């Protein structure tokens, strides 16, 4: 037992005061009466012995002294100190890549080796979802191989002991002072997956990780194709949806893929500064549908940087990045391209044009011979121009240009796209195994635990006070 404030024991001097007070209380009490005349006529007598030495008086003093002692002890802050191993903070990063789906039981078996008295934080590598302990996957990434780097960085900020559970090694090095314990739950899987799928030139193309039978459903008819690594088959012109599936195996995430032909209508999203002219030009076109959020096919960014939201086709108007200098427009000319079809150079009434800071794959418009509008790469159009609403937007070339952009965006929209296709690496199982060895963790530090007994002392004092009050009140009766 130790005390936080040993100096409080000076309060034990109050015991002396109590003793002196009790001696003083044994002197005759003084009673003032209106007249002492009658009392003078009553003879005094020696009190009986039992009145002088009442045990109740001694008990009262004893109780008072115990109460005072208990209060002094409470003020001194008594406590019992124990040393015991403190729980370790262990961060467990569980690879939530798709290829871990068949490994869930292995993960649970390895993590059950952890001491439940430790403070265990589990982080799923894909979603960075945190939880205390391991209760199975919340969310498995089925579309890509997850980079465990961010989750491991997060774990390193939370604990000095990191356990990484995966079926393959991570190319990540722990920072100084942090220990990484690799747990590998790899091993051969009896898996055949679809690693590539698509429709081009009216033909369905499928590539499997190894030779296998595949069932292809087009509309209401299904065809089972003989085992092969590559599959190629004709697609009816009216088909809009194709489903290819393999026989279920240990890893089912790559056993099925859907190939769809999207609608011809283009979903258009906007971000950045509002531009009523562009919005009006887009909304007036029946091939466009303006959407808020979601995944538009065409994204028009106005006065924004090059990062942020993206889409298959992005048009940057008056971009904040990627423009070297801004200047008054020179002689405007238009390069022949499907995007500039029927766009007249004399309609391009601009206030400023920018010099593009990077080489353009396909220049579209020039000012003084230098391109200010270009197709940087497939799906990325930049127009480094500023204009007044009475300038270019008031001319016929403006809606024509945006109609060209919509048509350009729609050219890919009608294409086939595969859904449920995994990265090819996801179909290759990790083969290594490495069990978790809890003995490699740092030893638990000894924590000093102190149980404060001040409250108990105060409770004891209160109890004794109640007893004291009981005796005192009985004494008065």
């Amino acid at each position, binding site marked *: 037992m130790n005390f936080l404030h040993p100096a409080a024991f000076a309060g034990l001097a109050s015991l002396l005061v109590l003793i002196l007070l009790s001696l003083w209380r044994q002197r*005759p*009490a*003084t*009673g*003032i*009466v*209106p*007249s*002492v*005349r*009658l*009392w*003078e*006529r*009553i003879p*005094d*007598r*020696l*009190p009986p012995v039992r*009145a002088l030495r009442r045990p109740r008086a001694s008990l009262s003093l004893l109780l008072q002294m115990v109460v005072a002692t208990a209060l002094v002890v409470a003020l001194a802050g008594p406590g019992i100190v124990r040393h015991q191993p403190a729980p370790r903070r262990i961060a467990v990063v569980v690879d939530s890549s798709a290829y871990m789906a068949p490994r869930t039981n292995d993960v649970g078996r390895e993590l059950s080796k952890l001491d439940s008295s430790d403070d265990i934080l589990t982080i799923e590598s894909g979603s960075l979802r945190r939880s205390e302990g391991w209760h199975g996957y919340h969310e498995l990434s089925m579309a890509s191989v997850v980079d465990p780097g961010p989750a491991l960085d997060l774990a390193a900020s939370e604990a000095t002991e990191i356990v990484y559970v995966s079926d393959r090694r991570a190319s990540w090095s722990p920072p100084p002072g942090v220990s990484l314990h690799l747990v590998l739950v790899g091993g051969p899987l009896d898996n055949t997956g679809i690693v590539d799928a698509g429709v081009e030139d009216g033909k369905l193309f499928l590539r499997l990780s190894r030779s296998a039978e595949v069932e292809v459903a087009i509309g209401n008819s299904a065809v089972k194709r003989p085992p092969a690594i590559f599959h190629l088959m004709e697609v009816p012109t009216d088909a809009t949806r194709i489903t290819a599936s393999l026989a279920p195996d240990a890893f089912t995430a790559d056993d099925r893929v859907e190939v769809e032909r999207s609608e011809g209508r283009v979903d258009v999203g906007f971000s950045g500064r509002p531009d009523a002219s562009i919005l009006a030009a887009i909304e007036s076109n029946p091939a466009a549908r303006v959407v808020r959020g979601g995944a538009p096919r065409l994204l028009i960014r106005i006065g924004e940087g090059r990062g942020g939201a993206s889409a298959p086709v992005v048009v940057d108007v008056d971009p904040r990045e990627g423009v070297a200098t801004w200047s008054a427009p020179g002689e405007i000319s238009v390069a022949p391209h499907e995007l500039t079809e029927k766009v007249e150079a004399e309609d391009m009434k601009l206030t400023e044009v920018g010099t593009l800071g990077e080489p353009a794959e396909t220049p579209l418009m020039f000012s003084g011979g230098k391109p200010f509008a270009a197709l940087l790469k497939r799906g990325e159009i930049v127009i480094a121009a500023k204009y007044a609403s009475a300038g270019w937007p008031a001319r016929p070339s403006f809606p024509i240009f945006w109609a060209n952009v919509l048509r350009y965006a729609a050219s890919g929209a009608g294409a086939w796209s595969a859904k449920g296709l995994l990265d090819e690496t996801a179909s290759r199982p990790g083969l290594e195994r490495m069990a978790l060895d809890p003995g490699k963790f740092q030893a638990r530090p000894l924590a000093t635990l102190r149980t404060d007994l001040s409250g108990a002392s105060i409770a004891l004092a209160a109890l004794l006070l109640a007893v004291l009050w009981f005796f005192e009140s009985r004494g008065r009766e």
Partner: protein
Amino acid sequence: MVFDSAFLKRLEALRVAVRRVVGGPREGERPGVRRGGSSVFHSYRSYAQGDDFRSIDWSLYARLESLFVRERTRDEAPSLHVVVDASPSMAFGAPTKLELARRLGAALGFLVAGEGGDVTLWLGAKPRLFRGPGSVPGLLEAMASEEGTGRPADSLARITGRGLVVVASDFWDEGLDAAMSSLAGGGHQLTLLHLLAREELDPPLRGRVRIADSESGVAVTRFVADEEIARYRELLEEHVHGWRAWAMKREASYVRCASDVPFDEVCLVYLRGEGVLE
């Protein structure tokens, strides 16, 4: 000092009983010792010039052939002296004995002044005279707030004339006996209001106690147990009986009451019961 209206209504239905003919300086409703115009015959005297012919007793003239006039007594309002003991011993009780004494004095003074009498308050250093109904508010105010000084025995010694004398005290004062005997012999109608505090009736003393006198400071140390308390009660009873006997001997009214008895009950039961009020 405020009496509630219900109490005043009940109080107004009473009046201070006058058993002796006590002359007051003012005309009132009580038979006086002076000649006046009441219907009560007083005496005959020889006719003097200027006497009202209507007062001539013609039947006496027929027998004695001398003119005599009938003299009647004068109805007088009583004269009340209220002597309030304000010594330190009166500060005991809840309410204190002094507080009860003030209220009793106020009630009796209210009745006497209300019927046109004189009320002399002996509470402070000097006596204060209140005359007639118009002085009632002042009387009540003085009863409530006048600081009490002096010994009641000294006040009693200064009372002159004849009238009602009410002494509200705990009667522990040594000189009271002689002063009141002198007044009783002088034709005053005395009323003793013997006020006792609850702690006097039932002393809360136990064990070894140094018992100090509130006035003299004299102290005695006694071991107090049930025996001593019983003996104290006997002595107190003797003390009370002594004053009651004293009062009976001198045709004085005697009322003993504890200070914690409700005031209404003191006035309407105790004082009426002892004939102080009628």
